[in-house]
């Protein structure tokens, strides 16, 4: 079975500062990894995904994430955040042999001016 752990429930940062949202996963088989963003009162939007190959993946809105197999991590980063990045961010995993996507508990990113 797969599981996802997001270590921080809330991350406050100042505008234009860098941010890292942490995610660790566990699985006995190969996985696909995702980050989704949920803006207030909206649905889930795919930020980026890791399937295979290069461990550094780039997504929309300037976000990127790095897959680290040895540490079973898939941390999300952005070098300089904007007020508009205020949202809930969900790390998710899907086994290569299954259909469902399992979500972490989410990290609320709040940006201070």
């Amino acid at each position: 079975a797969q599981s996802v752990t997001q270590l921080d429930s809330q991350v406050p940062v100042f505008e234009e500062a860098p941010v890292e949202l942490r995610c660790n996963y566990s699985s006995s088989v190969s996985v696909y990894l995702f980050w989704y963003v949920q803006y207030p009162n909206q649905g889930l939007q795919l930020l980026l995904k890791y399937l295979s190959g290069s461990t550094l993946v780039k997504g929309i809105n300037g976000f990127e994430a790095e897959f680290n197999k040895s540490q079973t991590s898939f941390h999300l980063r952005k070098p300089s955040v904007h007020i508009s990045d205020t949202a809930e961010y969900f790390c998710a995993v899907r086994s290569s042999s299954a259909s469902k996507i399992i979500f972490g508990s989410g990290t609320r990113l709040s940006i201070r001016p």
Partner: protein
Amino acid sequence: EPEVTQTPSHQVTQMGQEVILRCVPISNHLYFYWYRQILGQKVEFLVSFYNNEISEKSEIFDDQFSVERPDGSNFTLKIRSTKLEDSAMYFCATRERGHTEAFFGQGTRLTVV
């Protein structure tokens, strides 16, 4: 850009009533999912559906829940006799065959009173 459409956006129902939540998948997507998110909590998997049958379901998806694709376009989630604890945001998601990521609708906020 194609999107998953959910109706209604908000539904209020009395405890014990039946509700049907509707989803129009992205055209040519063959995998369908329902997720729910209780206010302030994580996104939880309910059920996946492929080839006109349930492929996987969670412990949450008990006999009160059912899914179907009644007319080849809509994908519905029925809750037979709603309970207060069914109050949540319900998300439909769809995935194209051969692709890894799922696309989510904007959600239906169900309030049981």
